[in-house]
């Protein structure tokens, strides 16, 4: 069986974007490229405002991903669950497409009798376990996120424990936005190891604005760069080039 790669952007934010392109539009673009956009909205003690929540949901919806609003404390389990569910959803989407090709338009998993559904689900589970996964993690570091960052760091470490237990390969990249001079700053280049995350968080710079749209745009661009590069084994050199910044 040919093993493809599941591509996800995982966006962690606590509010509304206020600069640049509409993130909902950019998320739709990502979906067209076969990248799902999952969004986790982190709430402090009080509630996130309506506008913030609706943006979080809209980005995920148009990005073909999953959204979740959580308290910072519950972040760990949510991050791993969203990633896993999103993976299953992506595969599910592919399987559904296959089903409608075989059975005709408008047919989905739910239109198959439960016994056969079970067989299909086994395939979905199998793929979710064995397919390779690229996660581009995008962390909002606008000023209001400051006190939530330790929780974000812990949640990402926890995610890496979960993903490392999979059979398939995983690669992560970690970027923050807003960057010092650009829209996003690289914290960790594509890597299968996530151990450097603690040190990466130390060099974070906090900014005032929240350019979610431009940040997503940059994420897609970097994803495409990686897809072109795949197989040419240039990742290491790429790392060195960019390390000078």
């Amino acid at each position: 069986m040919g093993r493809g790669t599941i591509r996800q952007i995982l966006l962690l934010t606590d509010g509304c974007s206020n600069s640049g392109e509409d993130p909902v539009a950019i998320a739709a673009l990502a979906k067209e490229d076969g990248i799902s956009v999952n969004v986790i909205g982190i709430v402090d003690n009080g509630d996130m405002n309506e506008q913030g929540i609706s943006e979080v949901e809209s980005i995920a919806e148009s990005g073909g991903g999953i959204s979740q609003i959580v308290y910072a404390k519950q972040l760990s389990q949510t991050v791993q669950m969203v990633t896993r569910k999103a993976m299953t959803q992506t595969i599910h989407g592919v399987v559904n497409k296959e089903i409608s090709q075989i059975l005709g338009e408008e047919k989905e998993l739910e239109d198959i009798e439960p016994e056969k559904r079970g067989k299909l689900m086994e395939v979905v589970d199998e793929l979710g376990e064995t397919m390779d996964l690229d996660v581009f993690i995008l962390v909002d570091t606008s000023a209001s996120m400051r006190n939530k960052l330790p929780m974000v760091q812990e949640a990402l470490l926890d995610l890496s424990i979960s993903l490392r237990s999979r059979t398939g390969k995983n690669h992560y990249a970690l970027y923050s936005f807003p960057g010092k001079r650009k829209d996003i700053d690289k914290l960790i280049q594509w890597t299968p190891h996530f151990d450097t995350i603690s040190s990466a968080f130390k060099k974070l710079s906090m900014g005032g604005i929240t350019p979610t749209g431009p940040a997503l745009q940059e994420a897609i661009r970097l994803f495409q760069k990686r897809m072109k590069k795949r197989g040419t084994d240039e990742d290491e050199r790429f790392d060195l080039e960019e390390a000078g910044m």
Partner: protein
Amino acid sequence: MRDSISKKQECKLIPNQRVVGKWHRNSYRIIRQLGYGATGTVYLAEGKEGLVALKIASDSMSITSEVNVLRQFSKVQGPNLGPSFIDTDDYVSVNGVYPFYIMEYIQGEEFLPFIRQKGVEWVGILIIQLLKDLQELHQSGWVFGDLKPENLLVSQKPFQVRWLDAGGMTRVGRSIKEYTEFFDRGYWGLGSRKAEPSYDLFSVSMLFINRAFPSRFEKDSSMNPTQLLTKFKEKEELKAYEPIFKKGIEGKYSSANEMRNELIALIKNTSFSPKPLYNNSGSTKTRKRNKVKKQKESNKKRFRLIGLMESMLVGSFLLFLYILYLFGQTV
């Protein structure tokens, strides 16, 4: 918080509502809600088989996965390997199509309240029962995953622990599907989330600690793996189980059987006093042993004392003879 993930509205069923399957046309009458889990809501219902448990969700993916697991065990089921699988179908309501499945209704008491009202020896007994089932499960290539008191029941006459939720069951070698942080070794930094027997045995160990800390606790920021052991030592009543607990959280048991055998041996050699204040067998045992030791030591001391007196006696007698001899010479 969980269900904002799927956009579809949660399916609420009310008592006496009839649920008829779209495919198999079986009819079930809802009696009451039994529980609520990550993947759906469980109701007590009445079907043509009598009382059954009905689990319904908005998302067919997770339900279908669970049905797959339950089916697996219905084929080769021993008496205790979870609830047996009965039927799966879709319920068509005005809000949409909701997948559901029917399983055996297990009547019993919740695990934590049961072991809290009974003596501390019961934790060990129920865990011995549980380990037997786990051994069977592991041997058939599966790991329970989300092992916690909420997923266990104690059925009566005779008391027997049963498990309820198949949601976390994962094939050996894969990544654990569903877990609860307190019972997850990954959360405590004590191992991976790969499905292997030792993953379940870690959770089993945490059942002990959950008896002593019913409301559980979170890891603190300066977390290191010994924190769990320190917490365990805080509770005098659990002391007897410490060696088992320690090996369990350190992942040193290679099979459920190994843990079970050690637990059986431990319980056999421990007297659990009926008085809750003194129900700490471990310390009484060591206390007793200490006493014996002390006695032995004092015996030894006494022997030494007697020996000393004896030699002194002999010495003084010789001295007396010598003086007599000296006297004889001078006179």
